[in-house]
């Protein structure tokens, strides 16, 4: 079974998403090229308010999906699950 994994481009505006992802011990955050790579054994959930991103940043934060699918991306949360 694949693990949920997504990529976020390393720019200052996206740091809120990564800070929230890294705070959860279930997630592994590392780098591949100019991207942060977030991986976990279970669905990855990023709380919108905790990330503190403005509208345009929040809805463009995901750069790529590896073996995964976005099942929620709205005003409350981003949720990425294994496909």
């Amino acid at each position, binding site marked *: 079974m694949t693990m949920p*994994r*997504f*990529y976020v*481009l*390393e*720019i*200052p*505006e996206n740091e809120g998403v*990564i800070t929230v992802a*890294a705070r959860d*011990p279930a*997630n*592994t*955050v*590392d*780098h*591949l*090229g*100019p*991207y*942060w790579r977030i991986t976990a054994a279970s669905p990855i959930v990023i709380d919108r308010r905790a990330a503190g991103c*403005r509208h*345009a*940043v929040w809805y*463009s934060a*995901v*750069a*790529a*999906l*590896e*073996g995964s*699918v*976005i099942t929620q991306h709205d005003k409350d949360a981003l949720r990425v699950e294994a496909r």
Partner: protein
Amino acid sequence: MSGQHAEKPVHQVRGVDHAAFPTFDPNATVRFYRDVLKFPVVHSICAAGWGPERHPDFIHFFFDIGQGDRLAFFYYFGWEPAGDQTAPGDAWARLPHATPDFFRNSRHIALHVDDEEDLLEYRRRLDESDWPVEMQVMHETIESIYTHDPNGYMLEITRALRPVTPQEDLDAQLTIEALCEVTAGQAPSMDKLLTRKAELIVEHAAGWERSHPGWREAEKEMV
């Protein structure tokens, strides 16, 4: 002649010479661009027809939009706008009534200013005019004000919040590669694009390790 030629770069264009649009209301157009926004009138052509085909007499006039670039209009004598003038759209074309704003406004021109002070100065000029700012939006890396000019063309004035990084250019190249691939196939979607992008990122990773060692995973472990 030396017979020696300096190697020219592949990318040789130098910005916008002019972007041109039709107008049926030159009075309002001049008020908006020259009197409200203070864009100098820098050139005009008064032409009695044009070439062998049936062609109305016209005035082609230009406003300076900075750095020698120009915004130009055509006014054709005796030419009437086509389509339902109550429908969404602009002087060039009208769209079906149900067309949402995002699509209507997707075609627009954006001019840039150096900083927030200049952006707010244009906001002040517009807000004191018959064409007040409709939106002021903080995007990912730019902040913009928007209005529609007297012809229905959306005008955006924008400032950069920070310089664009090489990483963003690289990401854009992968996005466009994935976009072209998924739109050439069946049922293109964001899901397919983001999935293809991940494949491209993995394919390029080894090359990045060599060309950009500062991006190496081991040096940036966060958890």
